[in-house]
């Protein structure tokens, strides 16, 4: 009996937290900064720290994943004598699956954790209270620009990841393994469709970006304002963010590509 009670209590806690996080999200989006110039400045600053500073890790990981995919794909495809299909394999797996998922995972680790830690530290040093005391809503001054920047950046980063991965794969399969250059590109051209492959990948990336950034800013805002609390919140951002991405990816893939 006790364990059922505990289960119910934790479910209720969880539901309450989700509800709070939902209200928090709605409030921070619908209370945008009033002064247009200021809000643009804040957003650009965040776009830089969330997006531009994540470029290196995204480009490098993209290139390596493209290279590994080509090596693996080539060794299998060569058995059937269809090495040039490596271009198709590369483009489809990157665009549909790997780019959004891996980018989002890296984003949760790189940008999400830093968002949580930054907001948590602002809370611990009373900067958030300070905004409130000045009659400035911290949700619109601190949270909104960070959330919007995250949502804008991740889909773009995912595209950059794909491009970098395809170039990396091209390097391995065409330059090193000797796949015919024209066949590499033409197999890709024939099999990749804009609305099913590229758009679906972008939709996935957009969903992930909303979820990951939401988790990151919420964990920062709600953290216990001590060094231990911030550490825990940062860990939760990465763990919850990664799990949410993988679970959501399955649901989205089933909806987009599954034959029901």
């Amino acid at each position, binding site marked *: 009996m006790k364990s059922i009670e505990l289960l119910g209590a934790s479910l209720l806690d969880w539901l309450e937290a989700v509800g709070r996080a939902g209200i928090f999200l709605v409030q921070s989006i619908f209370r945008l900064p009033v002064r247009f110039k200021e809000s643009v400045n804040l957003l650009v600053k965040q776009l830089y720290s969330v997006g531009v500073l994540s470029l290196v890790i995204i480009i490098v990981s993209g290139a390596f994943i493209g290279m590994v995919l080509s090596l693996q794909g080539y060794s299998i495809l060569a058995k059937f004598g269809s090495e040039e299909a490596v271009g198709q394999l590369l483009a489809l797996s990157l665009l549909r699956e790997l780019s959004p998922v891996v980018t989002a995972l890296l984003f949760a680790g790189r940008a999400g954790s830093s968002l949580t830690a930054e907001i948590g530290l602002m809370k611990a040093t009373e900067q958030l209270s*300070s905004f409130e*005391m000045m*009659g400035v809503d911290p949700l619109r001054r601190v949270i909104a620009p960070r959330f919007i920047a995250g949502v804008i950046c991740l889909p773009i980063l995912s595209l950059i990841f794909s491009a970098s991965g395809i170039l990396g794969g091209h390097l391995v399969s065409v330059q090193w393994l000797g796949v015919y250059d024209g066949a590499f590109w033409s197999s890709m051209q024939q099999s990749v469709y804009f609305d099913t492959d590229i758009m679906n990948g972008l939709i996935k990336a957009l969903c992930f970006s909303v979820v990951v950034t939401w988790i990151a800013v919420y964990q920062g805002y709600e953290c216990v304002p001590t060094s231990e609390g911030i550490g825990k919140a940062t860990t939760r951002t990465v763990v919850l963010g990664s799990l949410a991405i993988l679970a959501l990816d399955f649901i989205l893939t089933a909806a987009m590509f599954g034959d029901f």
Partner: protein
Amino acid sequence: MSVVDAYIKVQNVSFSRGDRSIYESVSLTIPRGKITAVMGPSGTGKTTLLRLIAAQLAPNSGTILVDGQNVHALSRSELYKVRKKMGMLFQSGALFSDMTVAENIAFPMEEHTKLDAKTIAGIVADKLYSVGLRGAASLMPSELSGGMARRVALARAIALDPELVMYDEPFTGQDPISKGVLVKLIRQLNDSANMTSVLVSHDVEESLSIADHVCILAGGRVIAEGSADEIRASNDPEVKQFLNGEPDGPVPFHYPEESISSRATL
């Protein structure tokens, strides 16, 4: 007690955090245009009192009137209007770490006034001058010492010429010179700008030296209220224990333990 022109009236306020009761029916007044020191041991909820006054926290029962308005009955936008009349100096300074000193002080003006950049720059220089840090305008908060950061935060708290300034532990962690500077500044600002100041502190000497009115909180209630001299002359054992820093007395040395019986029911 004589009738005073009260700027803030705290009436029968009770507040608890979780199961722990912080205040039980606390009433006190903060007179207009004076410096009021709220003192008490750590953990008696002195900072909580400031947050209740600023309506960042809501009491479980009772009312708090600031300049005649019940701050907890206001809508969000009305509350933000009232808060423009308040300045608060946080314990940590709470300077915005991504802005320079000058931008920090300019921020409330940019947010709430329609002044042009030049006028704001003039006021910023003025406020920095009054805390003796005009040369530090372009520094980042991370480059300041603790005492300087608190003075900058003070300059920011008075940027909008508030009617009420609340100081949360202004002397904690300050060297004797900075303490002296802060004491002088708080007095000066209060008298020259006709502000009402509330000061929360457990530094007995500094607080008594500048306060016109003193409240001592302990164990969730007000144990003494009056002028600094009245407090010094008090015979109440709790007050004496606090002022003289005796380790044990009416305020217990030991944090209350859970009784065995309450543990058993868990």
